[in-house]
């Protein structure tokens, strides 16, 4: 039953992508509320899935790779709904939805929804650490999406080749401001998640600590470069994409390793 919520949610996100692609292709795109409502509906179904799964497990549903991916997709949609309308970044929903579809699609299709063999007792610090880190990942994901939009727009302006999408993408300075804020939000939440990990009350796996610290250092370096004006906006945007791709791979690696090698 809970997986059906997830399928419906994926269809909602797919509707946003298909509609935008169709309108852009027909050169009829106009900023409407459809994307926001489609994503909001998808988010409601995601929340319903996580609520049911959490109720069944009696804890935050982050016990296997499947749940981690769904929670991450939920965090991406959550941050979009908080950020998208606030910054009025047209087309951000259209860029966000494919990422959510990718995460949820992978989670639904791959055989990764296996019960965790090592049942640990519920630990509120552990749950706080995991959920906070994933919400931070959501902010990093949105920064990555804004980074893609920035690079697309910047490339068109540099080469003087203005395609139809140029007129729908937000201005460079608005995108860069959004990237910066998302990075700060993500970094603050990630720091909170990282620090809370030390209060779990059990020894932490060395690989996880090293990887998490690596991600933290990477984003700290991007923000430092931005703050000290050592990095041009284009590089910040590119590093957001590289950073999130690396962080996502590490997240997958950590969770996958933790599942096949339970302590």
């Amino acid at each position, binding site marked *: 039953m809970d997986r059906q919520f997830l399928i419906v949610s994926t269809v909602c996100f797919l509707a946003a992508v298909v509609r935008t692609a169709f309108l852009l292709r027909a050169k009829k795109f106009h900023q409407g509320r459809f994307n926001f409502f489609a994503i909001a509906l998808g988010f409601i179904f995601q929340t319903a899935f996580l609520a049911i799964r959490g109720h069944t497990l009696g804890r935050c549903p982050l016990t296997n790779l499947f749940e981690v991916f769904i929670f991450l997709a939920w965090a991406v949609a959550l941050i979009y709904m908080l950020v998208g309308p606030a910054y009025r970044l047209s087309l951000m929903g259209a860029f966000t939805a494919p990422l959510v579809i990718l995460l949820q699609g992978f989670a639904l299709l791959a055989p990764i929804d296996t019960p965790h063999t090592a049942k640990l007792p519920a630990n509120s610090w552990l749950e706080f650490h995991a959920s906070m880190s994933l919400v931070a990942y959501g902010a990093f994901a949105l920064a990555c999406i804004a980074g893609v939009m920035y690079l697309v727009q910047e490339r068109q302006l540099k080469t*003087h080749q203005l395609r139809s999408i140029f007129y729908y993408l937000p201005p460079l300075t608005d995108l*860069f401001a959004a990237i910066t804020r998302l990075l700060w939000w993500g970094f603050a939440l990630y720091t909170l998640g990282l620090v809370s990990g030390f209060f779990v009350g059990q020894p932490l796996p060395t690989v996880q600590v090293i990887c998490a610290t690596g991600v933290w250092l990477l984003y700290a370096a991007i923000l430092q470069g931005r703050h000290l004006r*050592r990095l041009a906006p284009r590089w910040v945007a590119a590093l957001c994409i590289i950073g999130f791709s690396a962080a996502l791979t590490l997240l997958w690696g950590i969770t996958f390793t933790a599942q096949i090698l339970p302590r």
Partner: protein
Amino acid sequence: MNLFCVGLSHHATNVETRESFAGNAETDCVLRRSGCAEALLLTTCNRVEVYAAAQMRVPTEEIARCLRRDMNNESREEISAFYRYEGGECAQHLFRVAAGLDSMVVGETEILGQAKKAYESARKSGAAGPYLHRLFQRAFRVAKQVRTHTEITRGPVSVGSVTVDLAEKIFGHLANCKVLVLGAGETSERTARALVSRGVSDLRISNRSGERAENLAQLVAARVVAFDRWPEECREIDILITSTSSTALLLARENLAPILRERIDRPLFIIDIAVPRDVDPDVNQLEGVYLYDIDSLQSIAQQSLVLRRQQMAAAEAIISRHVADFGESISSGLNRKASAVEHPVGETSLRASEL
């Protein structure tokens, strides 16, 4: 009752000819005396047109005579330049005009405002009755539909509007942008005015001749910067417009690179509309610099025009549907109504949304 349109446009006549047939305040009344039950005069810089409804055919020569400013001039040659559309063709022509398809710059929207104004004026004077009311209200609907469902108005089509659009795509709102205009010629003035119209308030002008700089500065509310000091301004400004008559390059990559290191997180938009160019094209390779010369600006304007022309088929399809529908409605409903109601449509019978 027959609907028809007689007129002159930029397609076949020059401005002098159109001026000589521009009509005057009395034209509506003169047209009605000539046999038109309803008449409306639409005059813009690109066209002079009369839309009318009459029981009997009113000759084109008679309409031309009503429009003529100099009554002593009876040139047959000029009258042959008039076109005439009847019934469905008249509706089709007006729908195309209102949607901007017949304009010099395809898709321009000013014509719709001018048509609305002309209609409103004719309605108030009583010159426009139920036939023209139906025709024009439908034309306004068609224009709106064309604008919404096609990209006929998409994209900038002049150098000034391309500049403004690009600036907005880099900086968003232009209110906080600092602009330096190098050169005080007509092109600089036009571009500066286009930016001011979008909210730029910090405008600086630098020119070899201080007097011309002062004159332009007064016209566009800018401040003058001494010509030998303009490179220093590049540390602060967001937009640089150059259009000097210098034969040598004024800005090279080597000069700009050190300045840019101090402003790495702020883009610099350079519009080089000088011929020969003032800015080394290699400057565009620098991080955060977006350099556009006159050719690239004109090329974007051209792209927009091409895009607009590509949309014409879709717009014509919308118009054709409306022409067919309008033809049916005018031949059935309105004829019955017109026989019962002889007087023009009053304010109460007009839907507010159609005004």
